């Protein structure tokens, strides 16, 4: 044992020395272009050119980042609670996180879809998906608040979401995990009966009116894994393309069993046709249970509504809705070029990037150019739909974006690079390393009909030595490249928040002048709003005590409260009376089993407090609001349940 240990040590030392002598140390991925700094430098007081809305992955948020600087402006909580502003903690916001499973305080937000009109960004909304407990969310780009969340029934692993149609008619939600659906009896089946009993679903969610998201129809499909999707645009508007894997229908060790076939499929869906069937009453109304949460702008209060049915179309019964296009090796990204003609499949285990032609697809459908069937449905002939293949582009192609100048950029996870290729000629023209193992990549406007082909950002999965190390867990790295010229140039390397998957970016000029600065007090319809200091009061309703409190530089009204008894539930309804940009007030009270609330000017937020002992407890403003912020405080006295202390409140007395 001892000997062998020594031997091993010796071997390691020898090998190590050899390795060291074999390569000269160099700075990997350091920028050698002297003007890179000036290209990302945004002088103090100046603005970035693009807003980059970045998914937060397992942190459940969206980040708002400036490009080209890489500076983070905001974290927008979507599917996860956010102590910073009380999202998911305040009485008003809790309902946003309601689901049919109850309150779910976390999720995994993977993809961003920005609203579009005629295929171009219109700066109204950002949509995001919840991967774990399937949901989609809308974020208003004038307030950067989550204003709507819709749960998706009959879905598991909402990964293939929330990609959007060219006029924001629909966002989609398709199931990564197929599961048994239907009534309790249909759902309680052995896992080994995957092939017979498990189904995929693809939901088309009407999304063009705020507060009114609803599932227009849900396609029921064979049990496969849906991965990603893109809507057609221009000539292919009316179609949607979904990548699938595990068409082997394995239910265990997918690492091996889902990679058996040479080709999986891109499922092309004619959603306009599906709409016609729905209009003609062909949809099957099925029982379901899912929640729709909306935020009322005027009161700031979120409410949840339970929905109990969904309209389904089984694609097997409507053969002209969906067609299967063979695509090599577990395709991940399926991306449509700005003209709408080409659909790029990225088989993550494939040695080629197939590029399909929409025109050829229509022709193949018309001439029934099939190479077989899948679960009884026609599979189009690969060669008949294919424009051609990009041969040996790199290893592990995942996603493709476009620059609007005839080039596509594909991320290569395994070979850690971004590869630029000519869409017409299908030839690789340049490649640039990423640090390391790039996942998604993004060109501002990349998925639209009008990409701004100036920058490209790579969102990497592996960080290792890119920044000063911070223990085992490292921030995910992103790299910004200049793609305005022939060669891809690395400009900047910056850390991100959570785990970014997809991101989008839009010109700052589209939204920067539409930002809400505060909420007009006169429009506040919160039932507990207190619109002037004189209107402050306290009401006892049995064990519930409602404090109608105001905050304004630099005091709360009232700031002294007595007469609370053990067993009471105290609701601090705090209205921020300010009507001034960037003057939120916070509120926190000792021992509260929740987060602070952060109240925007003109808004009302409620913090619930259940005192657990007798005493006098302080509360204070948590946001450094003014020169007298540290004076912005108060006391609340709690007496025994049997006490006779009467309910009194005061300010300045």
């Amino acid at each position: 044992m001892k000997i062998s240990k020594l031997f091993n040590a010796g071997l390691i030392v020898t090998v190590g020395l050899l390795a060291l002598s074999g390569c000269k140390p160099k700075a990997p991925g350091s920028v050698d272009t002297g003007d890179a700094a000036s290209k990302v430098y945004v002088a103090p007081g100046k603005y970035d050119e693009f807003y980059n809305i970045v998914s937060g992955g397992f942190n459940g948020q969206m980040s708002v980042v400036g490009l080209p600087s890489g500076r983070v402006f905001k974290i927008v909580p979507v599917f996860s609670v956010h102590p910073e502003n009380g999202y998911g903690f305040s009485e008003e916001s809790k309902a946003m996180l309601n689901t049919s499973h109850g309150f779910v305080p976390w999720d995994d937000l993977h993809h961003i879809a920005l609203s579009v009109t005629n295929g171009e960004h219109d700066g109204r909304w950002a949509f995001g998906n919840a991967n774990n407990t399937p949901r989609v969310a809308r974020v208003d780009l004038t307030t950067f608040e989550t204003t709507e969340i819709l749960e998706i029934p009959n879905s598991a692993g909402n990964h293939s979401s929330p990609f959007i149609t060219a006029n924001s008619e629909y966002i989609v939600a398709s199931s990564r995990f197929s599961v048994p659906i239907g009534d309790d009896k249909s759902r309680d089946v052995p896992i080994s009966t995957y092939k017979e009993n498990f189904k995929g679903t693809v939901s088309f969610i009407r999304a063009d009116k705020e507060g009114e998201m609803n599932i227009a129809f849900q396609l029921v499909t064979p049990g496969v894994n849906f991965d990603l999707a893109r809507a057609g645009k221009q000539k292919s508007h009316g179609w949607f393309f979904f990548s699938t894997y595990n068409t082997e229908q394995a239910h265990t060790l997918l690492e091996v069993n889902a990679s058996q076939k040479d080709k999986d499929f891109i499922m092309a869906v004619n959603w306009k046709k599906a709409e016609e069937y729905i209009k003609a009453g062909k949809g099957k109304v099925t029982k379901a249970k899912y929640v729709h949460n909306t935020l009322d702008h005027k009161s700031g209060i979120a409410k949840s509504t339970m929905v109990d049915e969904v309209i389904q179309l089984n694609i097997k019964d409507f053969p002209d809705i969906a067609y299967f296009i063979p695509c090599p090796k577990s395709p991940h990204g399926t991306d449509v070029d700005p003209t709408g003609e080409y659909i790029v499949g990225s088989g993550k285990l494939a040695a080629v990037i197939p590029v399909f032609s929409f025109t050829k697809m229509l022709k193949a459908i018309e001439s029934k150019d099939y190479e077989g069937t899948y679960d009884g449905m026609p599979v189009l002939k690969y060669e008949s739909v294919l424009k051609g293949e990009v041969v040996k582009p790199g290893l592990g192609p995942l996603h493709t974006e476009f620059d609007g100048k005839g080039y596509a950029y594909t991320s290569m996870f395994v070979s850690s690079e971004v590869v630029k290729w000519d869409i017409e000629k299908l030839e690789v023209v340049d490649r640039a390393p990423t640090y390391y193992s790039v996942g998604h990549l993004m060109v501002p406007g990349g998925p639209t009909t009008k990409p701004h082909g100036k920058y490209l950002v790579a969102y990497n999965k592996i960080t290792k030595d890119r920044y000063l190390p911070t223990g085992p867990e490292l921030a995910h790295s992103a790299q910004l490249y200049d793609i305005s010229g022939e060669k891809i140039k690395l400009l900047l390397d910056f850390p991100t928040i959570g785990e970014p998957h997809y991101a989008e970016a839009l010109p700052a000029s589209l939204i920067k002048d539409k930002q809400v600065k505060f909420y007009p007090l006169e429009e506040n319809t919160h039932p507990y709003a207190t619109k002037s200091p004189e209107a402050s009061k306290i009401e006892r309703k049995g064990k519930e005590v409602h404090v109608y409190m105001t905050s304004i530089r630099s005091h709360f009204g009232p700031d002294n409260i007595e007469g609370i008894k053990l067993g009471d539930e105290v609701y601090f309804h705090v209205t921020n009376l300010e009507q001034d940009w960037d003057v939120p007030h916070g509120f926190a009270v000792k021992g509260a089993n929740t987060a602070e609330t952060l109240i925007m000017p003109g808004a009302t937020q409620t913090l619930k407090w259940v005192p657990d002992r007798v005493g006098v407890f302080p509360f204070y403003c948590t946001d450094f609001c003014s020169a007298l912020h540290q004076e912005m405080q108060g006391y609340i006295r709690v007496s025994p349940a049997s006490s006779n202390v009467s309910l009194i409140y005061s300010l300045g007395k």
Partner: protein
Amino acid sequence: MKNNFNMILLFFGVVLFAACGGESGGTTDQSVSEDAPTGLGQSGVPDDESARNVVQVAIASKDHSTLVTAVKTAGLVDVLSNVGPFTVFAPVNAAFDALPSGTVESLLKPENKSKLSDILEYHVYVGVIRPAIYNDGMTLNQVNGKNVTLGKQGDAMTVNGAKVLGYVECANGIVYVIDKVLLPE
């Protein structure tokens, strides 16, 4: 707020402030890819939606042009555009006119900037003293470090004997319009 303000003006029977106009305090167009930053402080923030701050209110008042000139000369515009909160005693033009001849001209000279600042800072308190807590005999320690004494008889308010002619609640505090310049001893 505007309504309250109008009522107060009516009560005191003087028209002190012009309606809040479009003046936005030296805004700069900070659009993308603009030239070098201007170096303006908070007074340069482009914002024509928020409630007006004490400086914007003073600037909008024809009866406070001397005060505004003095505040600009002393370099206090950005300071008073801060979140504050402030209580500002704002002497009307006539109050400056009543000073011995040549006083204002002298104070506005560059070499007297610190003296001017001292006087102006004597008119500012950090904190908001709204009428409800404006009490007779109350002293306020002003920004320049010296105290003023408030007076109140019924609804009539004074500061160091100067009469309060009206008041305006502002985003970052309150402005009391007064009929005399307060001079620190």
